[in-house]
């Protein structure tokens, strides 16, 4: 029995429309919302790391799907649920790909929650008008869900091979609860234990902390991809919903790690594993179905047709790496960050400030690079710090290429992990 497109849209839409929220009380005091004082314990080396996977899971292939496959394959990860958000694609289309991918991977035990279908404030029409008014935006050729061929939020297209059809709904279907509520409930039930992977716009997370600010200290780490210093300061996940990003980045999470676009640019899918052996070739040669099929169809064949095809940087794969094996990243820095939410040409740009801006390096005291010398001036004269509400985050700055590519190829080629 297979699910038709019409049936699929009805079940997903119905699930969202009828979702009933039974939020458990944290506290029933006269004026509730006391923040539970729970010590945050780092994940234990022996136990599996509990993770909520929040993603704009745009299929059939690409950085979103590869991040998903890594999390599904990693033995040390306990994937509590997948929450979806409109970003690279519309949420319902992502739901179709995600449910079917889990079916193909034999992992139908993982619940999938429908999340925000629209950004908080940003709209497709205003994005297009901003480009006309201020000039084109580097992200215009992408635009994710807002791109014309993606239609509207209910336009779910059939799934191409190897997906072929929608998931059998009697086997796996979308959950009733909204993603934000699942995040709240899960963080409260597992204080200090649930890491949040956020690979898309941060709308679901922003809604969760607006409804329940008490979960912020209960989440040991949030890892996102977006923002940048050098390559670009504007990145899709942030520009698609700048207000959500600002809200989430400003919250006082115990640890908030960022894969910047600068870091993600350092490794591309088509890169070599070792000289003469490409990651893709290795995976196609050794991986099992359906991973091998996906790489064959969406990486090997496009490259065969056009060897100049530039496969994408490994953005979401790096978030997965930070969750699965943080030792992949050899350097990071605590920095202040904020997002420009003025609806102008810089809508969604990221801005960074050094955590130790008051200890401005002076020549003779500490080595100062030429680039730093342009930034740092006499602190007695100028204010160099962040704006009053900027968030303090952990910016990942160096990746161990060898360790990362080996981790990636290992996860893609090992036997498909069982439920």
């Amino acid at each position: 029995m297979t699910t038709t497109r019409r049936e699929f849209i009805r079940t997903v839409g119905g699930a969202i429309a009828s979702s009933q929220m039974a939020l458990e009380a944290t506290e029933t005091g006269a004026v509730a919302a006391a923040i539970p004082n729970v010590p945050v314990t780092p994940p234990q080396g022996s136990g599996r790391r509990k993770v909520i996977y929040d993603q704009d899971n745009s299929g059939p292939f690409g950085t979103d799907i590869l991040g998903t496959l890594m999390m599904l394959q990693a033995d040390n990860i306990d994937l509590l649920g997948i929450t979806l958000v409109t970003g690279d694609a519309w949420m319902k289309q992502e739901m179709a790909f995600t449910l079917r991918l889990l079916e193909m991977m034999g992992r139908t035990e993982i619940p999938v929650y429908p999340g925000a279908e629209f950004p908080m404030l940003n709209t497709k029409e205003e994005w297009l008008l901003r480009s006309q008014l201020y000039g084109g935006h580097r992200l215009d050729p992408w635009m994710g869900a807002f791109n014309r061929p993606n239609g509207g939020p209910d336009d779910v297209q059939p799934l191409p091979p190897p997906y072929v059809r929608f998931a059998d709904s009697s086997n796996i279907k979308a959950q009733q609860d909204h993603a934000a509520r699942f995040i709240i409930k899960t963080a409260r039930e597992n204080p200090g234990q649930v890491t949040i992977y956020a690979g898309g716009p941060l709308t679901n997370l922003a809604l969760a902390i607006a409804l329940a600010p008490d979960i912020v200290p209960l989440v040991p780490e949030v890892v996102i991809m977006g923002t940048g210093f050098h390559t670009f300061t504007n990145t899709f996940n942030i520009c698609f919903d700048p207000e959500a990003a600002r809200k989430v980045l400003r919250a006082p999470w115990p640890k908030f790690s960022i894969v910047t676009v600068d870091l993600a640019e350092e490794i591309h899918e088509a890169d070599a594993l070792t000289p003469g052996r490409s990651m893709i070739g290795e995976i196609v040669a050794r991986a099992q179905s359906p991973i091998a099929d996906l790489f064959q169809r969406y990486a090997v064949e496009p490259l065969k047709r056009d060897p100049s095809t530039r496969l994408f940087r490994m953005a979401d794969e790096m978030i997965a790496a930070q969750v699965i094996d943080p030792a992949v990243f050899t350097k990071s820095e605590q920095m202040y960050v904020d997002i420009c939410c003025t609806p102008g040409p810089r809508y969604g740009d990221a801005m960074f400030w050094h955590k130790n801006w008051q200890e401005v390096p002076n020549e003779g005291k500490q080595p100062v690079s030429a680039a730093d010398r342009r930034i740092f001036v006499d602190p007695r004269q100028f204010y160099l710090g962040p704006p009053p509400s900027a968030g303090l985050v952990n910016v990942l700055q160096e990746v161990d290429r060898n360790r990362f590519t080996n981790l990636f190829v290992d996860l893609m080629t090992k036997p498909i992990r069982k439920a």
Partner: protein
Amino acid sequence: METSSGPLAHSAMFSPPEQAPVAPSVKKKLIYDQDHRGPLSTDTVATLMLLQADNIDLLGICTVTCDMWGRQETAYALRLLELMGRKEVPVYMGAQEPLLNTKAEAQMRYQMFGSRTLGNEGYLGCFAKDGGSRDDLEPLPPPYSRFAQLKAQPEPAADFIIRTIRAHPNEITMYCGGPMTNLALAAMLAPDIVPITKEVIFMGGGLHHSTSSVNVYFDPEAAKIAFRAGWPKLTLVTTDLAEQVHMQDDAKVDYIVDHAHAPIDELFRRFEQKPQRDNPQRQSFRMPDEMMAAHAIDPSIFGGFDEMYIDIVTHNDGHYGDTLFWDANWSDANKGTPLAGQNNPSIKAGRVEVLKAIDKKRFREIFVDLMTRPVNQAKS
């Protein structure tokens, strides 16, 4: 439905009442979302009006930070319900902070761009310098005297709003007397509630007196989301209209102090009559939230509305939270002139019905009657 196309065709100036006064058997189901400032303010007085009105079925009170921090407002709301003997009305604590705006930035914007002018329009609610912080909880003065034994519900206000509107499709009136943070969260989490909400009544924004009001510029992003959402009917009480009636007009306060029952008499004696007697120069506040309550209780006292488009400025500068209005008939305006077809609204602007006149005499009658009648008993 108006169909003629003249420039003012959409405004139903002093139209006759749309319906006969509602009989108690068909009470209007209402969710009361409020930045509930105690001990007595336009917020609290509107609460008293809705508690006293026979034709209102008050399904719940939601609080939202603005005039005060949510915790303190919730404490006032709970104790007021105890004093009024209305413990059956559930109280839900809502957003404790705006979606994005922060106290530090609000203060800094005023330094950089100057405060909003026009008398007290620079008001920042609990974001004022001496406004304390989120978790502060001050004792309640007499006649409140102590914290309530009544507890707030564990559910967040936004979830209560979603659940209730879904349970009563096309029946719920949302009264939003503070920033629309709770309503915006509800609409983002559950867009399906928007078309099945009977009416949203909101106080804020202005065309003349000031271009904005604290309920909008305290949380501009929430206002933008809520205004753009597409409710079947969104009624707006502007500052322009609210300015037409002030609390001390017509010696209302003295009459209420003399004729009201406890605890209403004591509240008005301590917090309206006494301050006025101590300082005769005091300018008593306009009655915005009382007007919203009056609209919920008896819409016929308002003399029609203008259909307009509305949008909110969210640039983080001196205009953060300004309200922009456009005539719903912009495409018909200035026909035959070079201005024709040029006054269009922003591409995503929302539609609102801007109340434009109030029958002051009837408003006063309704208000004084509600404040002086015997205190309403709890629903059985």
